[in-house]
């Protein structure tokens, strides 16, 4: 008997091999459950929202008339509010998240890496209702007296600044909502960006330094180009979270269904509208309109995540 024969006979039937098909089926069932749940949610949202979508048609997206008394619903206010606050949040948190990630990768002394990493994770773990109450009771009054009032009194009558700052100086507006959202998505984006920066091969960066580049040059000419596409994906993930954020926004956005006309104007988002009104939505059309809003939010989030995945996937293929 040769050595190779011995090896093959011993390897053919490892102990417990009979369980592998079962294990495979368990995993497949888990994956199927997930897909089934997702499909179920989409289908139910579509069915539940259909009465409102079919009755109001395009005006559901182009009208701000949201009137529970007459059963007429147009979701333009919440839909636009969702997009505006989410993109503004992104705008605010992106530079900071970028700064945190670059600091952690390029400058941070080894001793500080862990504490800062833990702090970022803790920030991600704070429940959103806590951000909401902090926003309502602490941040909004602070923002009103130190930013809104000075800005509004500095504005010349008829100037652009006056147009952008009109509203009620009490801190409940789309700008404060966006800032609180920015704080909430910051840890996610910082964490993902840091991971991405760490994927840049050390040789590349070291050779950059070896050529006499400054840190700024290494970051802008080596690290960033290397992770460009994935970074866009990370940003999209943050955006996806901002889109669906509910309680914190509900507390400080001012909850009016009109289109926000300035930074200090109140507005609403899809998630905040559903959270506010679903409990007491008594007529079937009212409920349907809220579910239809949920369906729209699902489509927006889906589109954002699909773009994120496409960009992240493209990066891996390179």
């Amino acid at each position, binding site marked *: 008997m040769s050595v190779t024969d011995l090896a093959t006979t011993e390897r053919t039937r490892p102990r417990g091999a009979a369980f592998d098909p079962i294990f495979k089926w368990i995993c497949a069932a888990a994956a199927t459950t997930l897909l089934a749940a997702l499909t179920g949610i989409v289908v139910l949202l579509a069915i539940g929202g259909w009465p409102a979508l079919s009755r109001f048609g395009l005006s559901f997206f182009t009208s701000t008339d949201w009137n529970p008394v007459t059963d007429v619903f147009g979701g333009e206010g919440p839909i636009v509010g969702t997009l505006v606050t989410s993109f503004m949040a992104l705008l605010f948190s992106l530079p900071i998240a970028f700064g945190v990630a670059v600091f952690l990768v390029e400058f941070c002394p080894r001793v500080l890496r862990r504490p800062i990493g833990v702090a970022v994770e803790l920030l991600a773990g704070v429940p959103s209702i806590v951000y909401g109450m902090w926003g309502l009771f602490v941040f909004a009054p602070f923002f009103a007296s130190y930013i809104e009032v000075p800005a509004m009194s500095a504005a010349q009558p008829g100037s652009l600044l006056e147009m952008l700052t009109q509203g009620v100086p009490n801190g409940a507006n789309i700008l404060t909502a966006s800032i609180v959202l920015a704080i909430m998505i910051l840890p996610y984006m910082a964490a993902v960006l840091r991971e991405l920066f760490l994927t840049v091969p050390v040789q590349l960066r070291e050779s950059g330094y070896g050529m006499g580049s400054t840190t700024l040059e290494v970051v802008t000419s080596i690290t960033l180009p290397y992770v460009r596409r994935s970074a866009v994906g990370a940003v999209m993930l943050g955006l996806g979270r901002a889109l669906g954020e509910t309680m914190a926004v509900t507390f400080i956005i*001012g*909850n009016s269904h009109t289109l926000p006309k300035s930074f200090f104007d109140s507005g609403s988002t899809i998630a905040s509208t559903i959270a506010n009104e679903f409990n007491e939505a008594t007529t079937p059309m009212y409920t349907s309109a809220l579910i239809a809003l949920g369906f729209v939010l699902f489509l927006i989030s889906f589109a954002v995540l699909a773009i994120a995945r496409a960009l992240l996937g493209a990066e891996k293929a390179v």
Partner: protein
Amino acid sequence: MLKRLTAVACAALALGAAGAAKADISGAGATFPAPVYAKWAEAYKAQTHSQLNYQAIGSGGGIKQIEAKTVDFGASDKPLKPDVLTSNGLMQFPTVVGGVVPIMNLPGIRPGQIHMTGSVLANIYLGEIKKWNDPQIAALNRGVPLPNLPITVVHRSDGSGTSFLFTTYLSMKNPAWASKVGGNDSVQWPTGLGGKGNDGVAAFVKQTLGSIGYVEYAYAKQNHMTYALMQNKQGAYVSPDANNFAAAAAHGDWSKAPGFYLLLLDQPGAASWPITGATFILMHKQQTNADTAASVLKFFDWAYKNGDPAAASLDYVTLPPAVKALVRKSWGQIKGPNGQPTYVSH
């Protein structure tokens, strides 16, 4: 507010501890009376070992759940109209009364110094009166130093029985409000900011100079908010307090209200607070299990007899004895499978 929160927390603990045991009766609905139902349930359990499980999911949810028969009783801050009751085979009865209070943030103005009518209040909420020194407000408040401040309107962002009472009252007093906005749990507000819950409205009013809002009485009282005196049906300006809510409840002609469909808004009587409302329990008239129905009625009968001090300590107003007698009589409509009333009060 703290008192109510503690009461809710205690009740939640009590319910949680007994969660493993059989829940004798179950109910769901309005959040406004939830603290007093919880407190009653706690005391009732100590005396009778019967368990009440109440879920404060909102009036809309309470109505849906009782229609689907998933609970033994539903609770709503808004009475159902008699024809809706009939078509669903339901009956309703009031339990406690509360008041809605306009609150404001005005420098140099004491609580009760501002006088207000329903019509002017509606014009403020319509956005037609924009400043505190508007002639319409000044006419009601001669000698009061009204500031030249813009008015910020604050309303509830979530659907609520409080908004239903407030907007329905404005509809009664102001035709423009009735045609443009109407009365409902949630409406299309012509202007202003929405705060979530009584807390949210109170917080916005506290933080915004020149704002006006409306909250349940308990929130106005416990937060020491500046409130307005309201003109009632008889033309008198009354303050929001328990006695004046009770006066409105006593003037309500419950005996002529089929299915207890009665809004206590704008009631006659010199002391009646004009924005008053009762909260209601909903039950099926035809019961499949006579014992369960009897336990529910027994609980509320007990609460009518013994629950008044607990309700008063949480700033609710209890029903006048005559109304309680009428309600007890109405329980005869709730019948078991054998066609007999399930419970007779002694």
